[in-house]
């Protein structure tokens, strides 16, 4: 597999930049290309940067000359931040993926797609299997906008794979990531001065440690497999235990009050909670990672419980400094 040429969309994200750094250090990777409107995080040595918006049809003309054989699609937005509206998020996710695939239709050098998708497609349901395997994606209706976006993205890649039997499409379904240098909905939630929970619910949660998350992405580039693969740190942790480890008090709220109270908290500058996240901390979700271990050949180094303890330990000094 010497002389791989890899394109990373969303190279300005934490995962995009970290993956680029890891691929740069890999002798088997001849060339790394990064596509994003944002600058990469930290210094990259030999990554060719293309400054373009993934939603722009013009990217077709930019991707073809790079003669890449592998595309890592990382530009999928998981939560609307303060700087991005829900509408823009939907545009980037769905239109961006569509434009990327349209551009790749015209590029015959590509043999591999690796997508950093989301386990959000399984939803968070009270009567769900305690561990989702990859074939359980449509057990429940897609309830939120983000879930429907992920559903669309997966459909586009399935269709693409069907039209191009020679292309391997790996759909990585990531659980929420947690890492000391990573700002996610999960870490913002656990860092709130008082953590709102659903009264009477203490669901099992599962995360993926940021290091394992990047390594899994690199492992999938090295050893791509067809179809969906769950990515998570094995095991689960109860929400209450997670919040207690983070050293925060909880504020249990009756379900009808949950939306209004967290909405009001958002208005005074606390992190908002998306509909997906609110469902997640009510019913929880865990996935089975057998396929990641056995077929991609990557075994996460952390369990979910360890990932949480590690996050607490590493983010504590910052907390006391602040």
């Amino acid at each position: 597999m010497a002389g791989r040429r890899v394109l990373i969309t969303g190279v300005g994200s934490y995962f995009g930049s970290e993956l680029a750094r890891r691929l740069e250090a890999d002798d088997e990777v001849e060339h790394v290309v990064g596509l994003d409107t944002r600058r990469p995080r930290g210094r990259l040595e030999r990554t060719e940067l293309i400054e373009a918006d993934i939603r722009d049809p013009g990217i077709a003309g930019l991707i073809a000359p790079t003669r890449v054989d592998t595309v890592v699609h990382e530009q999928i937005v998981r939560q609307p931040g303060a700087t991005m509206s829900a509408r823009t998020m939907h545009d980037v996710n769905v239109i961006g993926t569509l434009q990327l695939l349209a551009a790749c239709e015209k590029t015959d050098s590509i043999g591999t797609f690796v997508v950093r998708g989301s386990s959000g497609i399984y939803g968070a349901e009270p009567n769900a299997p305690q561990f989702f395997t990859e074939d359980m994606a449509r057990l429940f209706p897609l309830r939120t906008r983000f879930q429907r976006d992920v559903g669309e993205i997966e459909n586009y890649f399935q269709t693409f794979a069907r039209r191009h039997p020679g292309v391997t499409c790996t759909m990585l379904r990531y659980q929420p990531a947690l890492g000391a240098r990573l700002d996610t909905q999960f870490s913002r939630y656990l860092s709130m001065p008082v953590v709102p929970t659903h009264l009477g619910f203490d669901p099992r949660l599962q995360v993926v440690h940021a290091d394992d998350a990047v390594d899994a992405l690199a492992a999938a580039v090295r050893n791509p497999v067809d179809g969906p693969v769950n990515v998570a740190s094995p095991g689960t942790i109860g929400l209450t235990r997670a919040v207690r480890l983070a050293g925060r008090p909880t504020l249990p709220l009756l379900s009808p009050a949950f939306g209004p109270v967290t909405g009001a908290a958002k208005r005074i500058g606390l992190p908002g909670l998306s509909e997906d996240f609110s469902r997640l901390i009510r019913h929880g979700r865990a996935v089975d990672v057998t396929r990641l271990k056995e077929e991609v050949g990557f075994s996460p180094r952390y369990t979910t419980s360890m990932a949480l303890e590690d996050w607490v330990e590493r983010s504590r000094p910052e907390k006391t400094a602040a």
Partner: protein
Amino acid sequence: MTQPPGVVGVGPALGALKLVRDGLRQGLDAPEALIRAAAVLPGDTRRAVERAARRLDGDYREDEWGFDEEFADLVLPFLDFLYDRWWRVKTVGALNVPGHGRALMVANHAGILPWDATMISMGLLREHPLPRYPRFLVLDWAFSLPWVSVAIRKVGGVAASPFNALRLLEQDQLVAVFPEGIKGTGKPYRERYRLQRFGRGGFVELALRTGAPIVPVAVVGSEEIYPKLGDAPPLARAIGAPFFPLTPLFPWLGPAGVIPLPSRWLIEFCEPIATAGYGPEGADDRSLVLELSEQVRDTIQAKLLENVVRRGPAFA
């Protein structure tokens, strides 16, 4: 010296509370303040307070299913009381349950609330030389309820999905199912010793696929704890429940109506039925599945009728 265990004198209790207050004033967080203050309390209480403080710090274990053994142990004294005093449970044949490795217990189900599950667990914990907590498959609906869902998962219950059961058996756990399901808990009082249909034999498929032996369990006594004389479907629909029981005490006495009647119980674990010999492909053989399912049902039904007589009057 004459003080009964578990009761703390007013003096030490006030002293401890003062220490908690002082600790908090000194800027300690709640768990630390509690641990420091617990030092002045007598042995048992001190350990309980220390454990509570440790748990407040997030220092406890849950397995990947959310089972929290320490939490389960906490409710044991209450279940001991129910087992010994309230229902005077007698357990026979506990040795028919394998001490290790995968196994599937199949039991009859009655009595509105799943007290029978707790007493089956207690029977094993008390009578088996290698006790272990069985993992129960619990009606999905229970997992949408606040508190109930948390309590169930912490004591080893999982949603009744075949995926969960397969994974548990593959992990060599002891799994327990009630194939009658809601038809069992909701059966009217006059049909109390009559087993309902055993679904479509899904539990047999699970056993065949994993080669787990099936242990039939016959429970006598759960049938009398809430004599269900009637049902109120409109009320059931209103709260989203599968049925709304009308018993001599419920809902007339309000919350007190939830107190189960003190019937006498007899739990029997029957001889295991080996399934490993059929191989995993046996799970796709409809006739084999239905035949085994019927065999298990007949075993439990026969044992039930036999044991109703052996037990004698329910309320004597």
